[in-house]
């Protein structure tokens, strides 16, 4: 079966949410709200209610980054300090915990941030080639609903879009 992509542009959030409501109510058999991709210029505060809860893995990655930062930071510092053959001590310990706490803290934050950013870039699939179905209006003031489904659903989806006053519909067939 050929996969087809379809994008329906709407002029405001209410129309788009109404269309999603229709899909939730199974107006089109075989299409659920989980197939919906919703494009918009901002994040609407009620989007989670409309689309249902969707998970994000980023907080877990941040936790990994923080723990990595703490362990790597402290071990690196302690080994570098104990590696000195002659110690610039000033009467203090070889591995001074107060100084090392400061640097461990910084390393924790640095690695948390770096890990979070990498996770962000990966989960948002930003570096992949941008799919061609896009409209400049989305970054301006229109919102869109996108599907990537079998060909047979396309006409029904189009009908739902038109019922909900969509401004424009774009589609594309993947070969």
């Amino acid at each position: 079966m050929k996969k087809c992509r379809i994008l329906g542009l709407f002029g405001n959030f209410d129309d788009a949410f109404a269309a999603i409501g229709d899909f939730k109510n199974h107006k089109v058999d075989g299409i659920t709200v989980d197939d919906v991709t919703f494009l918009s210029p901002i994040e609407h505060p009620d989007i989670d209610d409309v689309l249902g809860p969707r998970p994000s893995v980023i907080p877990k990655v941040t936790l990994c980054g923080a723990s990595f930062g703490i362990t790597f930071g402290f071990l690196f510092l302690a080994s570098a300090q104990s590696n000195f053959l002659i110690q610039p001590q000033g009467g203090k310990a070889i591995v001074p915990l107060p100084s090392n706490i400061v640097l461990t803290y910084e390393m924790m934050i640095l690695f948390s941030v770096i890990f979070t950013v990498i996770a962000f870039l990966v989960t948002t699939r930003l570096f992949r080639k941008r799919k061609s179905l896009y409209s400049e209006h989305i970054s301006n003031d229109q919102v869109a609903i996108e599907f990537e489904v079998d060909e047979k659903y396309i006409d029904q989806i189009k009908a739902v879009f038109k019922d909900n006053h969509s401004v424009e519909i774009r589609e594309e067939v993947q070969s």
Partner: protein
Amino acid sequence: MQNNEVYKDINEDLKWTQINKDILQSMENPRKGYWISVAVCLFLIMFAVVGEIYQYQIGMGVANLNWPHMWDLYIATFIFWIGMSHAGTLLSAILHIMNADWRKPIYRFAEAMTTFSLMTAGLFPMIHLGRLWNMYWVLPYLTDRGIWPNFRSPLVWDAFAISTYLTSSALFLFIGMIPDLAICRDNARGWRKKLYTALSLGWRGDDRQWRNFRRTYLIMACFLIPLAVSVHSIVSSDFAMSIMPGWSVTSFPPYFVAGALYSGCAAIITLFILLRYYFRWEEYMTIAILEKTCKLTFAIAMVWTYLNLIEFASVWYGHSAADKEVLLAKFSGPYAPFFWGMIFCGSIVPFVLAFEKWRRHLPTMMVVSILLNLGMWLERWMIVTPTLSLSYHPIAHDVMWPSWVQWFIVAGSFGWFGLLFLVFVKVFPSVSMYECKEMVLHRRELANKEISPVMANGPGGGAPAPGVANKSPGVEGS
């Protein structure tokens, strides 16, 4: 017009298309005033380069540094720039977590200010070194000599903290800008389109991207706040961890952080007024937002004043003769005019911010914000120099004034910061477009209005796609 209507944070009838248009026009080809500002900045930088080359070749003595004044304006200006960088974090991160949406039109340039102040501050630890060409020894890298930097030293903590802060702030700025760069990409032509296409990394605005974006932004904001506090505490520990009277003060970390927030807020007011005037952004950088920023600055000014007084009080309670001598020298010694200037600018001038009439008067706010920053710079200088002019040992009592080399380099740092900022405002959107749209949405909800009139399906809304009918001006490439 009634007072309530004029002084809104943002006009909730602002159409989203209008937001795009207004901000994108700031990136058009610059007018004469811009080139004059760039020329002034380059001139100041040239002064600094001349001074630095002279100092590099001949030695630190040309800066009038001597025994015991081993540190002077370089360290003071370094701390000043690090301090100024805290504003962006305050606005972006702290106010974000507190859901204060009045920050939305102004945090982008504040974040840029953070990144550029850090880039400026990072020059000074290099400039003040006697053997600057070896400065990379402060970084931990594997050498065949098996030697590492001394991690006990607050200067190494500085190196780590500032690089962490610079990296995190730059990433925070960039990631927060991605949706805006997508807007620029969709409206640009020529070399700009290529630049924005590359930088926006293929942002489409789908819900997966927005969801992860929101999480990332919140997490980074949560990390950036303790980072900012720790960075300036670490910078203050250059002094607090030493043994010198007047420096070995436990309240330095919070004192410095309060001073940093203070000078950052003052700088925000300055840049706010400049950008509002230059780009005609009265709709976005409204008087109401300025008032809120001024009130925040006033609050921080009172915190700073309190911590200053606490420092005096702790010297008075303790019986360290050397500390008392340093404090009295600040009040009545050779550096007293600058000390009292700092007290005036830092503790008395902010009372202007308590009056509504003055808060709304832009020229007054411009002058006040510059005076506040001057006060903060003097504060840093008055921390460094009076202690060194006295210290514990009576033989080391000496008064020293900086030479032209130091003043040139300090001036040049302002030129460098200005240049970076000027380049930023012309290449990147210095107001966050998508956040302004969110703010309009939120304000409309609060006022029980529907969102659709400001979106495409509203009256007169829905500009045709660019390239199809050339009604709205796109952003020109060269």
